[in-house]
């Protein structure tokens, strides 16, 4: 899990972006020692329209482009609802160390 350290820990300094085990990361986040960076986002183009649901009340029109979380993009790709869009406006580009 990717986190941004808010305090120094062994071998890493506050401000560093590091990857650590999920349980450890959650503990550190809850104690204010790290901040959750979550997953990266990617840009996709919808091949067909997707109707709103209670969980996601947004309607996605066929042909529209959206920035979505990577895991959501994978689901949509698996269902062949979207194409990945390869634009310069690429996903997260801060200096990841993982």
């Amino acid at each position, binding site marked *: 899990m990717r986190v*941004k350290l*808010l305090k120094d820990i062994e071998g890493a300094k506050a401000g560093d972006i590091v990857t650590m085990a999920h349980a450890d990361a*959650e*503990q550190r*986040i*809850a*104690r*204010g020692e790290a*901040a*959750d*960076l*979550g*997953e*990266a*986002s990617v*840009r996709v183009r919808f091949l067909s329209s997707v109707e709103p649901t209670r969980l*996601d*009340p*947004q309607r*996605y029109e066929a042909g*529209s*482009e*959206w*920035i*979505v*979380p990577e895991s*959501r993009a994978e689901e949509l790709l698996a269902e062949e609802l979207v194409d990945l869009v390869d634009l*310069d*406006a*690429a*996903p*997260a*580009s*801060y200096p990841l160390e993982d």
Partner: protein
Amino acid sequence: MLTPLRSKLFDKMVSAHLVRPKAGGGATTLTANAAASATLLALTSPTGFTDTDPVLVGAGEDRELVVQTGAPSGNNINLFAPGLKRAHVATEAVTEGIAFDLGAVSATQLDESVESSPIPNDNLRNPEGTIIGHAVLGPRLTVQGWSPQLFALLNGIQLANVLGAGTQADPTQLHCDGDEFGVEDSAIVLTSLLDDGTYLREEFDACGHDYTGMQIPFGQGRPTELVTKFVSANNKQVISALPSYAADVTYRAGKGDQLESLEDISLLEVDGAGFNTTTTANIAAGANSVTVAAITNMAAGDWGVIEGGGRKQVVWLESAVTLTVTFRTRMKYAFPSGATLKELKFIPLGGLNKDTSLFKVGGSVRPVVFDNQRVQAGVRPGSTDFMLSVQPTSHTIDMLRRQWGLPAGAVSGNTLRFSNLIGTDSPIGWYVRCTTKAQKTAIFVGSDCDNALAELTRALQKDNQQGLAMNFRCKVASQLKY
């Protein structure tokens, strides 16, 4: 695990933050649609956006708070998890925010509720079940302390309305006629510490301000508490982590901001022996000087009333030199050349009943509820109502006359006659001066007053200290601090 854990008991509130757009900060639009949970925003311009900025995405009731991580990459900015709460489309506004630490808060209450009605069933004794209706999300905050800026932040007033340099010659000052209230929605972020040293953060987006319970108590030894109810227009999010932005502590309430000592409460009326002139130039809103026809009888520290163009404001003089008058108070409105400027005298109200001296903001706010949305869409500001409420205990003919707004002519010798003239002679204004615990001077002034005569109850009992309840409604309420 659902077993109760003592380690997760609430320990204490760590912070209460109010987030608004930053004046002069980054302001741009989205160039691409972004779905809920996205952690990347594509912007038209990333100018002004920096690492750990609070960022407000969307506008009005759809505005939500996220936090930037890292410097912009090209025109993109990355967000801390969990990213966006809801989807936003290209061209929606993106604004750099600023989180104000509200400092000492007490009695924080989550007056949240969800409508639920039983589903009746004649075949069963119990209802068939429950149907869920609209939900109200938002906290009621009690902030311990007062400053014009805090008052503005808590009432949805833009900070641009707070003027002045914080000196006696130019006090920090806020002049309100009601139109300022509820103009600026805010995000509220409450962070709590649990017993095991972990945190719980509750974020309320696009909160409307229910200012109708706001009071400033003036009595000795009464905590200065500013109470506002916030109603989120769209969302609440709970995260087990500290906020990842840094809060601005400039207006943080502290013990020094308590109004510790009430020095003076007076009514203001025109002094027939004082200065009486007219302006010879227009004076703009926010300005503090004007040329006049004469400066006879004017002295630094005098109070007066400027009246013209259908408006009236109590003013405080700093100097009068060669027909130029400089005021310590700024103008709420523009006044035209030819406006009258008359001196005011103070009618002190002595022996005030305990815990009865208050400045109260009343009025109304209207809940916004839509059939196709579960969460109440905030509140709309309705009316405001500014009132000074006091209870002087001097049962004199003159005080009774002023309580009922009767003219001086209603007094004949030692007799006060009530008549159709009730409420026809109100003071020009009212004046309250306090000293804060940090030894700052706090002045509250009401301009253009009327007696509010509803419910003037007075118990004639020998064992109480019943005062003469007086309520003065004013058109412009001013707050000064230096």
